[in-house]
C-alpha cells in the first residue's frame, strides 16, 4: 500500500471517528436538554410597540431565571427559552409559532404565549390541531373562556369583558353604588379595531342592566390625532370616559382631553392604556389619570424582593432600564410567568416530574388553582389575583385593580380587586362560544371530565 493510500485511509478513519463522536455528543446533548422545559417566547423588541414589550419579557425572563437559579427549576426541571421576533405582526407571529411548535432538542412546547391579540386569534384553530395551549393574559378572544369550545385557548385572569365590567363597577364604587349608575353617561373611546370593539357587547348589556347611557367613540389607528373625538366628548359631556387604547393612542387621548378641558381623573384607561409607557409621554396633564389593570404596579411585593436579591442584584436581569422594575408591564411579565410555571407544576403533579407537552399543560391549566395560600408561598399576594380554572372557565379571575397616576408613579386607589359581573356576563359568553361552535362545526367537550 502506498503512503498516499495509507494517508487517505487514515484521514477517512479520522473523519468517520469525528463524525461518530459528534453524533454521540449531539445525542447526549439532546438527551440532557430533554430534561429541560422549553418555553418559546414570541417577542417584539423592535417596531412600533417595542417599548411596551421590552419590560414584559424582562419580567417574564427574570422570573424564569429565578425559578432556575433559586428553586433549581420546576421540581428540578430547568426552564430554557428562546425568542422569536414578531414585530407584533400576525404573519410573523404565526411563522414563529410554526417554527417552534415541534419543541427544541427533544423538549416539547407546553404553552405558547402569542403576545399579541391578532396573533392569538390567528392561532386559535392551529393550536387545537397541534394540542398546544395559547395563554393570553388580558387579551385574546373573550368567548374562549368557554373551554368546552376552545380547549386550547386560555384568556386567563382578566378578559376584555371583565375589564369593561370592572371599570363600570369601579365607577359604581365612586358614585355610591350600582343603583347610582342610572342616568350616568359613560363614553368609551376605543381603538377602532377588533380589539377595541371587543367591549361593545358587554357594555351595551351592562348599560341596559344598570340604566347608564353607553356612548361609543372610535379612534382610527394609530390614534395620533383625536381632536374630532374629544370635541365630541366636549359636546356630549359624559360623566366618565373609558379609554381603550393601544400604543400612541393613550397619551394623545390624555393630552387632547386636557385640551378640551375634560377632567383626567374621570378617564379610566383599560388594560392596554394603563402603563407607565402610556402616561409618561402625556406629561403633567396625565396627573390624576386612572387605569384598570390585572397587573398592579409596584416593586414592594415579596416576589420582587426575591427577584431583586437573586436576579437583579446579581446582574442576571433582562431589564435594561432599572426604572422599569415593578412597572405595570414588568409585572405583567412576572404574572404571565407565574401562571405558566404553576400550570407546569400542576401538570407535573399529575403526569410525573418531567418536561410537559402541550396536551399535558392543557390539563395543568384547566386544573390550575392559584389560591391565596399558594400566592403567598410564591410571594405574589396582591400582585396576582387568586384564580381557579376549569374546562368551563378558562379565565378564572375576572378582577382588576384601579391605579391612579400621581405624576411619578401609579398608586392603587380601588378597594382591592374590583370584581367584574361575571355571573351576569358568562351566559352571554357561553352563547357566543356556542354560536362559534355551530359556525365551525365543533362539538363542545363535556365539562364534567
Amino acid at each position, binding site marked *: 500500500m502506498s503512503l498516499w493510500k495509507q494517508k487517505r485511509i487514515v484521514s477517512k478513519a479520522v473523519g468517520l471517528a469525528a463524525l461518530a463522536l459528534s453524533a454521540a455528543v449531539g445525542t447526549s446533548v439532546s438527551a440532557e436538554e430533554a430534561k429541560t422545559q422549553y418555553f418559546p417566547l414570541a417577542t417584539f423588541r423592535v417596531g*412600533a410597540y417595542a*417599548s411596551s414589550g421590552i419590560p414584559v419579557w424582562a419580567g417574564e425572563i427574570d422570573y424564569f431565571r429565578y425559578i432556575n437559579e433559586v428553586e433549581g427549576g420546576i421540581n428540578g426541571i430547568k426552564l430554557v427559552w428562546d425568542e422569536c421576533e414578531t414585530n407584533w405582526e400576525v404573519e410573523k407571529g404565526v411563522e414563529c409559532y410554526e417554527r417552534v411548535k415541534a419543541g427544541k432538542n427533544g423538549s416539547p412546547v407546553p404553552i405558547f404565549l402569542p403576545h399579541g391579540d391578532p396573533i392569538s386569534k390567528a392561532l386559535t384553530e392551529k393550536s387545537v390541531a397541534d394540542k398546544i395551549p395559547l395563554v393570553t393574559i388580558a387579551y385574546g378572544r373573550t368567548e374562549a373562556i368557554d373551554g368546552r369550545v376552545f380547549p386550547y385557548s386560555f384568556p386567563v385572569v382578566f378578559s376584555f369583558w371583565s375589564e369593561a365590567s370592572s371599570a363600570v363597577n369601579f365607577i359604581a364604587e365612586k358614585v355610591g353604588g350600582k343603583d347610582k349608575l342610572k342616568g350616568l353617561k359613560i363614553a368609551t373611546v376605543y381603538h377602532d379595531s377588533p380589539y377595541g370593539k371587543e367591549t361593545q357587547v358587554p357594555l351595551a348589556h351592562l348599560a341596559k342592566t344598570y340604566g347608564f347611557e353607553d356612548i361609543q367613540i*372610535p379612534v382610527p389607528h394609530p390614534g*395620533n*390625532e383625536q381632536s*374630532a373625538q374629544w370635541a365630541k366628548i366636549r359636546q356630549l359631556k359624559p360623566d366618565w370616559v373609558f379609554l381603550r387604547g393601544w400604543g*400612541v393612542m393613550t397619551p394623545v387621548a390624555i393630552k387632547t382631553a386636557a385640551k378640551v378641558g375634560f377632567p383626567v381623573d374621570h378617564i379610566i384607561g383599560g388594560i392596554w392604556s394603563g402603563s407607565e*409607557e402610556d402616561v409618561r*409621554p402625556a*406629561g403633567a396633564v396625565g396627573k390624576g389619570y386612572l387605569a384598570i389593570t390585572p397587573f398592579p404596579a409596584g416593586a414592594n411585593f415579596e416576589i420582587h424582593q426575591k427577584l431583586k436579591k437573586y436576579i437583579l442584584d446579581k446582574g442576571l436581569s433582562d431589564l435594561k432600564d432599572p426604572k422599569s422594575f415593578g412597572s405595570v408591564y414588568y409585572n405583567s411579565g412576572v404574572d404571565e410567568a407565574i401562571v405558566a410555571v404553576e400550570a407546569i407544576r400542576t401538570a407535573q403533579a399529575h403526569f410525573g416530574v418531567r418536561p410537559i407537552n402541550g396536551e399535558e399543560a392543557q390539563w395543568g391549566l384547566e386544573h390550575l388553582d392559584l389560591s391565596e395560600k399558594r400566592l403567598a408561598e410564591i410571594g405574589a399576594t396582591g400582585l396576582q389575583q387568586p384564580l381557579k380554572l376549569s374546562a368551563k372557565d378558562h379565565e378564572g379571575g375576572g378582577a382588576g385593580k384601579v391605579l391612579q397616576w400621581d405624576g411619578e408613579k401609579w398608586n392603587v386607589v380601588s378597594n382591592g380587586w374590583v370584581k367584574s359581573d361575571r355571573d351576569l356576563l358568562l351566559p352571554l359568553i357561553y352563547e357566543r362560544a356556542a354560536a362559534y361552535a355551530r359556525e365551525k362545526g365543533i362539538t363542545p367537550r363535556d365539562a364534567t371530565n
Partner: protein
Amino acid sequence: MSFFIETLVGGLLAGVMYSLVAIGFVLVFKASGVFNFAQGSMVLCAALTFVTMRDKGIDFWLAAPITLTVMVLIAIAVERVVLRPLVNRPQITLFMATLGVSFVIEGLAQIVMGASVHELDLGIVDTPIEIGGVQVSQFDLVAAGTAGILVVALSIFFNKTRVGIALRAIADDPQAALSIGIRLQTLWQIVWGVAGFVSLVAGLLWGARQGVQFALTLVVLKALPVLIIGGFTSITGAIVGGLIVGAGDSLAEIYLGSLLGGSVSTWFAYVLAVAFLLIRPAGLFGEAPIERI
C-alpha cells in the same frame, strides 16, 4: 353652530401639524424629483436624538443644534452612499432607495437610542383658551405659528437666495442646470439637510404632542393625502392641503362617522386625495409637467 366652528378650527389646526411633515417631502421632491419615503423616519430620528440628549441633561439650546448637525450628517451620508451612485437612474429606483434608507434609519435609531417612549416637554402650555366662544388649543396655535414662519423662511430661501434658485433650476431641468456649473451633489446635500431641519421641527412638535416613540413614523400616513391635494412641489400647497385634510377629517369624523357607525378619518383624507387626482392630478398648487413631444 359653535360646535361646528370648534370642530372646524380644531381640524384646521390639526391639519397644520400634517403640513409640517408634508413640507419635508415637498423640499426633497422639489429639488430632485425624488419622493423621499424616509421622511417619517427622519422625523423620528430627529426627535429621538433631541430627546435622548435632553434626557442626558443637555440644555435645550445646545441639544437643538447638535440634533441639527446629526440630521445634516445623515443627509450627507444619504447623498454620498445612496443617491450619488444612483444619479440618472429611473425615479422608481430612487424611490426604492429612500424606502431602504427609511428602514435603516428606523433600525439604527432604535439600536443606538433605544425603543423606550420619551416625554418631550417644550414648555408650551396646552390648556385651551376661548376665542369668540370657541375653544382653541394654545399648543396648536404655536404649531400653526411655527408652520407659518417655516413657510415664509423656506419661500425666501427658494426664491431669494442663490442656493434656492439653483435648486429650482435643478428641479426644472437637471441637464441644463449641470451644464451651467451647478453642483448637483452639493445641492442635494443642502436640500436633504434642510429637510432634516424641517424633520427636527416636525419631530419636536409631534413628539411634544404624543411622546417620542416609534409611532412618529406613522404621521406620514396623513402627509400623503396632504401632498396629493396641495401638490408635490409647493410649500404653500402643503399648508393648504394640510388645512383641507385636517378640516375634512374632523368634520367627516363627527358628521359622517356617526351616520356610518364607525371611524372614517383613516380613509376620508384618501377619498379627498383621489377626488383631487381625478380633477386636478398635479394638486392645487403643483406644477403640471409640460414636455415638448
